[in-house]
C-alpha cells in the first residue's frame, strides 16, 4: 500500500492541462464556471476535440479504442477536466452503451456503433424510466412486438436526459409480458430519426431542462438492433446500472465548485467557512474512497455494490456544495432572470456573476439523489447485496 505519484503521472497531468488550455474555448469555460446553460454545440464540439485526441473512452480496452490509461491516468484526466471547467461529456455513449456493446454486442453491432461513439459523431440517450416505472424499473411497459425483421415499438419513456440532443437511444422494452417482470425485457438501439419517435422536453421547476419525454408510436426497429438475447435485457440493464453509478461520483465537479466557494468566502461568517471546510473534508474522503474502490481497479474489474456507496455519498456531497454556493449569495439567491442563463444575454448581471445560476443549480441538483436509481434504492441494494439483510 503506497501513494505512488510517478513522473509519468506528473507528465500526464501536464499533458492534460495543456490539451484543455489549447482546445477549450474561453466562453465555454466561463459558462461552466458560472453555471450558465450549455448548448449542444458547446458540449459536442468539446467531445469531438477529446475524441480527436483519442481520449473519449478511457474505460474501454485499448483494443476497442481506449487510450490504454492506468487507473491513475483515468482519474487525473477526469479531475483536471473538472478543475479546468470543461463540459462533462454526454455520458451515455462512452460510459454506458459502449461497455454494454463490448460485453453483449455482436461483431456487426460493435462495428456499426462503436466508431460513432469513439468519434463523438453519434450522441446517445438512455430510454429507461417510464411514467409508472420509476424505482420499480423492471415493471416497464413500453412494448416491442416482433413483425418479421422488425420490432414495432410503442410506449413512453420519461426523464430521458439529453434525448433532445441524441441521435440514438438505448432503450429497454418489453417483448414478453407472460412471465416474471424481469424476464421479457429486451434492449433495443433505436435511431431517434425514425418515424414515430417524438421528443418532448420536460420543464423542471429549476427552469433548467435536459429531461425529456420520448414517445414511440409504431416505431419500426430492425431486429438487428437488439442487443443480446430477446428477453435477456435485464442482464444488460443491471450491468449498465453498475457502470452508471460508478461514474466519478462528482469529485472533480465538487472540487471545482468548492474552490470557487473558497474564493468567494470573505471569512466574515466563521460558521460558513467551517461548513465549507466540513464539506471539503467529506469530499476528500469521497475522493479517496473513489480512488480505493474504482480508480485503483483495473479497467475490466467489475465494480460491485461499492458503486452504490459512491453514488449515495457523491450526490449528497454535490447537493451540499450546491446549497453552500446558493447560501453564499445571501439576498442575491433571490433574483432569477431566466434569460441570464442562456447564450447571448449581455445585460449586466444582478449581483455577483455566480449568483445568476447558483439558486437554479441548487434546485436542479435535487435530481441527483433521485435519478440513476434513487438513493433509497441504492441503500436497498447495499442492504441486500452487501449486508445480506
Amino acid at each position, binding site marked *: 500500500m503506497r501513494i505512488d505519484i510517478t513522473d509519468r503521472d506528473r507528465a500526464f497531468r501536464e499533458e492534460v492541462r495543456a490539451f484543455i488550455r489549447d482546445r477549450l474555448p474561453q466562453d465555454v469555460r466561463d459558462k461552466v464556471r458560472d453555471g450558465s446553460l450549455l448548448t449542444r454545440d458547446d458540449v459536442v464540439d468539446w467531445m469531438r476535440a477529446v475524441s480527436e485526441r483519442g481520449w473519449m473512452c478511457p474505460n474501454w480496452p485499448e483494443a476497442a479504442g481506449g487510450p490504454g490509461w492506468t487507473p491513475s491516468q483515468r482519474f487525473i484526466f477526469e479531475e483536471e477536466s473538472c478543475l479546468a471547467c470543461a463540459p462533462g461529456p454526454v455520458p451515455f455513449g462512452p460510459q454506458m452503451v459502449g461497455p454494454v456493446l463490448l460485453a453483449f454486442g455482436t461483431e456487426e453491432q460493435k462495428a456499426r456503433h462503436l466508431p460513432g461513439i469513439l468519434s463523438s459523431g453519434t450522441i446517445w440517450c438512455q430510454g429507461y*424510466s417510464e411514467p*409508472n*416505472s*420509476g*424505482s*420499480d424499473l423492471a*415493471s416497464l411497459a413500453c412494448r416491442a412486438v416482433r413483425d418479421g425483421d422488425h420490432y414495432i415499438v410503442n410506449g413512453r419513456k*420519461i*426523464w430521458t436526459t439529453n434525448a433532445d440532443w441524441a441521435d440514438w437511444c438505448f432503450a429497454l422494452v418489453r417483448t414478453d409480458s407472460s412471465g416474471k417482470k424481469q424476464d421479457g425485457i429486451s434492449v433495443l438501439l433505436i435511431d431517434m430519426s425514425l418515424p414515430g419517435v417524438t421528443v418532448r422536453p*420536460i*420543464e*423542471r*421547476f*429549476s*427552469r433548467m431542462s435536459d*429531461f425529456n419525454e420520448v414517445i414511440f408510436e409504431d416505431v419500426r426497429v430492425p431486429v438487428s438492433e437488439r442487443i443480446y438475447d430477446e428477453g435477456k435485457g435485464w442482464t444488460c440493464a443491471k450491468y449498465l446500472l453498475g457502470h452508471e453509478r460508478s461514474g466519478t461520483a462528482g469529485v472533480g465537479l465538487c472540487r471545482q465548485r468548492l474552490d470557487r466557494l473558497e474564493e468567494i468566502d470573505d471569512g*466574515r*461568517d466563521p*460558521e*460558513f467557512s467551517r461548513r465549507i471546510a466540513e464539506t471539503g473534508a467529506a469530499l476528500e474522503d469521497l475522493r479517496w474512497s473513489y480512488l480505493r474502490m474504482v480508480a485503483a481497479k483495473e479497467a475490466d474489474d467489475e465494480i460491485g455494490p461499492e458503486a452504490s456507496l459512491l453514488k449515495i455519498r457523491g450526490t449528497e456531497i454535490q447537493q451540499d456544495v450546491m446549497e453552500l454556493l*446558493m*447560501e453564499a*449569495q*445571501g*439576498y*442575491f*439567491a*433571490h*433574483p*432569477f*432572470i*431566466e434569460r441570464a442563463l442562456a447564450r447571448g444575454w449581455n445585460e449586466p448581471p*444582478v*449581483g455577483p456573476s455566480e449568483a445568476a445560476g447558483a*439558486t*437554479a443549480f*441548487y*434546485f436542479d441538483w*435535487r*435530481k441527483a*439523489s*433521485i*435519478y440513476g436509481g*434513487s*438513493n*433509497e434504492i441504492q*441503500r436497498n441494494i447495499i442492504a441486500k447485496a452487501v449486508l445480506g439483510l
Partner: protein
Amino acid sequence: MDFDYSEDQQLLQESVQRFVRENYSFEARRQLVATEQGYSDAHWRQFAELGWLGIPFPEEHGGLGMSGVETMVVMEAIGSGLVAEPYLSTVVMGGGAVAAAGSEEQKAEILPAVAEGKCKLAFAFAERQARYNLQDVEMRADAANGGYRLSGMKSVVFGAPTADRFVVSARTAGGLRDADGITLFLVDKEAAGLSVRGYPTADGLRAGEVTLDNTPGDALGEVDGGLPTIEEVVDRAIAAVSAEAVGLMGTLNDMTLEYLKTREQFGQPIGRFQVLQHRMVDMFIAHEEAKSMAMMAAMRIDEEDADARKKAMSAAKVQIGKSARFVGQQSIQLHGGIGMTDEYAAGHYFKRLTMIDRSFGDNDYHLRRYAAL
C-alpha cells in the same frame, strides 16, 4: 396561555382560506406569476375590501388594530396557496415601518391608503455588500434645503416593481456598520433620480434593485435613530414568513402524504415502505415544530422588550429554516422525478420555502444573534 383562536380569529381564518381555495388553484397561480406584474390587481382590491390590508394598523388610521396573531392567520393562508400578492412588502414591512416610526401626519396620509389598497409600499433596507447585516448601510442621505437627498443603491427590494412609495434606510451620520446614524426615509416612486430595475425572483415573485441619485426623501422617525425600527420591521417580517412557511409546509406535507398513498411501485403504494414512512413522520414533526415557533413568534412579536423580541424571532427563524429546508428537500425526494417537474406544484412550494430561508438573516446569522442576546 391560550393556543386557541378567538371567534374573530376563526372567522378571519375561514375568510382567507376561502379566498385561497377559490382563487389559488395551482394552475391559476402559474398563470398569474407568468404575467408581467406577477400578481392580480383584482385580488388586491378584494384584500382591501375584506380589511386584510389594514390588519395591523391602528383603527384611527383605517386599520383593524389587530395583533401579530391575525397577521399569522393571514400569512399562513398565503403560504398554503402560494399567494403572490405583495402583502409582506406592503402591509407587514412598509406599513409596519410607517406604523412604528411615522409621525401622525405620515400615518394619516399613508396607512389609510394602504388599507384601502390604493398605495403599495416596499421596504428598501438591504445592500449588496451587507449580506444580512442591518447596520451595514452605504446609501447616503444629505441634508439639503430643509429636506434630504438620497444617493446609493438598495438590493433585492421585495415588491419594488409595483411599489408606490419606498421606505429607504440611509446613513445620515457615523461610519459604515455603525448602529447609530441610520435614518429611514419615505421616497416616492416618481421622485427625481429614482430608478427600479425589477426582476422575478426564484420563487416566482418580484423584487428589484432600487437606485437613488440625489433623490428627495422625507425622514420617517428619528433622524440617526432608525436602526431599532429597521430591526422591528425585519422581526415583523420574520414572524410573518414563519407563518407563511407553516402554510407552505402544510400544503407540501399534504401533497407528499397523498402521493405516498397513491403512487405504486413494486406492487404496493410506496407509503408502505418503512423508510418513507419515517421520512414522512419527520416531515410531520418538522411542520409541528414550525407551527409551535410561528405561534410563539406571533404571540411575542408585539413584545415591548426589544432584546427579548429579537431573541425570540431569531429562535423562530432558525427553527423555521431547519423545518423548511427538511420538508422542502424531502418532499421533492419522496416525489421522485415528478417532483422535479415545473408542472407539479411541489417544486414551487419548495422554492418559496427556500427563499424564505434566504431572507431576513439565515440560520448562521440568527444563531449568532440568539447566542449574543
